[in-house]
């Protein structure tokens, strides 16, 4: 029997990750390399949040929760969204607690997309967007953003990408992998185009808590007219260093959220109960937990940007998330060769930019979610490596 042939067409035709070989290499060398390749915090979840999870287990809270998540968690999320981003969501109807932001993205796409519907996706971006659209039978329409625009989607580009078939625009800012953050004005300009063409927006705001002076995160859902056509994806993974708990949420218009909850109910039942109890503690004292990590990220961010520039790489100032996305073309290498050679010769793992879309070619993603000691050493090696390569070039 040829099992491969029996797989669903959508899955078979889903292109495998372009940097699989690089993944395997990096994982083989795991333990011997400094890894600045990782898209998750190096911090452990703050102790009080972990403790809330442990306490939940002690109480014997080991059962399913309501499908949309515990009401008190949804109330906490609602309060948080109001206080932090001035967004109003009813805990009863507008919020679903999911298994990570990942599930929320998938739910939103599956709830909206009919076969043939187009979804505009600015690149470089988180790798799951295209895959979700593809699996839902939609058509991902990639828009390559450029270094000249600090990797931000421009209203012009959006206008050009929209066709009569466009249903949804997916925005991921603060951005993984570039660290780009949209200003309020930039968001308003994009919103105007969205409104003009009557599209919907999925706004992946997983990194909303991680922006650095002078940037502040503002949500497109807060722009006049956008609240009822936007799903905001929120999470705990990045802000509270809770990747392994598998919890996140979606907020948006009630009818759409009810549809998302319908899929969630059949596919997932409910998010992990322990994680939900821990997440309540995280939400209720958010700033207390986020602030120290944000300050530490910011110091590392400045350090890495400075080191990249000193090494001779062009590097725009990333004001969000925990990534730096320098241009490595001066070395004469493409992103893949750069990363493979850097891994082999200097034992540092970083990710080639094209893994996040073709316009990432010529760039690499350096994650500063790593200890300062490792970052410092990795930057010494980066300088050495780039100098050596530039001699060759």
């Amino acid at each position, binding site marked *: 029997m040829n099992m491969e042939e029996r797989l669903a067409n959508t899955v078979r035709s889903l292109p495998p990750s372009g940097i699989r070989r*690089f993944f395997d290499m990096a994982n083989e060398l795991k333990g011997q390399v400094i*890894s600045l*390749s*990782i*898209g*998750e915090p*190096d911090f452990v979840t703050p102790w009080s949040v972990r403790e809330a999870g442990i306490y939940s287990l002690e109480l014997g809270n080991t059962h399913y929760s309501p499908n949309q998540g515990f009401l008190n968690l949804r109330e906490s999320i609602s309060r948080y969204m109001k206080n932090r981003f001035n967004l109003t969501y009813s805990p009863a109807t507008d919020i679903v607690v999911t298994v990570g932001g990942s599930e929320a993205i998938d739910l939103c796409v599956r709830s909206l997309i009919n076969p043939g519907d187009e979804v505009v996706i600015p690149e470089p971006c*988180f790798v799951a967007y295209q895959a979700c659209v593809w699996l839902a039978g939609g058509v991902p329409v990639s828009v390559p953003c450029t270094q000249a625009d600090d990797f931000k989607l421009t209203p012009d580009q959006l206008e050009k990408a929209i066709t009569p078939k466009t249903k949804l625009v997916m925005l991921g800012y603060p951005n993984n992998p570039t660290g780009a953050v949209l200003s309020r004005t930039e968001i308003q300009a994009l919103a105007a185009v969205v409104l003009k063409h009557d599209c919907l927006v999925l706004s992946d705001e997983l990194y909303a808590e991680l922006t650095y002076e002078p940037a502040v995160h503002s949500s497109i859902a807060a722009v006049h007219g956008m609240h009822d056509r936007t799903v905001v994806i929120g999470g705990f993974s990045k802000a509270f260093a809770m990747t392994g708990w598998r919890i996140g949420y979606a907020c948006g218009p009630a009818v759409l959220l009810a549809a998302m909850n319908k899929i969630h109910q059949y596919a997932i039942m409910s998010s992990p109960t322990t994680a939900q109890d821990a997440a309540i503690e995280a939400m209720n004292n958010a700033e207390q937990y986020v602030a120290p990590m944000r300050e530490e990220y910011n110091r590392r961010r400045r350090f890495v940007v400075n080191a990249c520039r000193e090494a001779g790489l062009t590097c725009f100032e990333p004001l969000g998330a925990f990534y730096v996305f320098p241009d490595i073309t001066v070395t004469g290498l493409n992103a893949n060769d750069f990363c493979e050679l850097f891994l082999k010769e200097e034992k540092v793992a970083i*990710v080639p930019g094209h893994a996040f879309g073709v316009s990432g070619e010529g760039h690499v993603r350096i994650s500063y979610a790593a200890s300062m000691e490792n970052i410092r050493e990795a930057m010494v090696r980066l300088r050495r490596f780039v100098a050596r390569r530039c001699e060759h070039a």
Partner: protein
Amino acid sequence: MGRKEEILSLLERNAKLTSEEIAVMIGRPIDEVEKTIANMENSQVILGYHTLVNWERTASASVTALIEVRVTPQRDMGFDHVARRIYRYPQVQSCYLMSGGFDLMVIVEDKGLKDVAMFVSEKIAPLDSVLSTRTHFVLKKYKMNGTEFNEQASDHREAVVL
């Protein structure tokens, strides 16, 4: 957090950071950082740069004891005078005035149990204003100055996760 406080909290965690590194991390010019640090040294906000040592991992282990001391405060001088007579001994690592059941908490480090005991009975207990002492020996250090002892810093994360 103010600029000074930010520099202090960085140095408190890692005194080996150079002014240059601090300048990059907080996004200020080097000479400003150098000047701020020099000012804080002069005004004794920064009192020193120490190394946190886990002596247990060396050949020269020592013992640490907390000594609770009850004293009668002295006219015009309160507790300061007697505290000074105690904390001047080099064995005394720290000395605090306390609220509650006793007055001075004296932290002593010495070569062995006997040395500490002798120090207490010969130097502290006989002082006129000392009413009583109670000595507690430290059996194990779990955490000191914000640093956890014996914790292996290792990275269990997957090498590449997008």
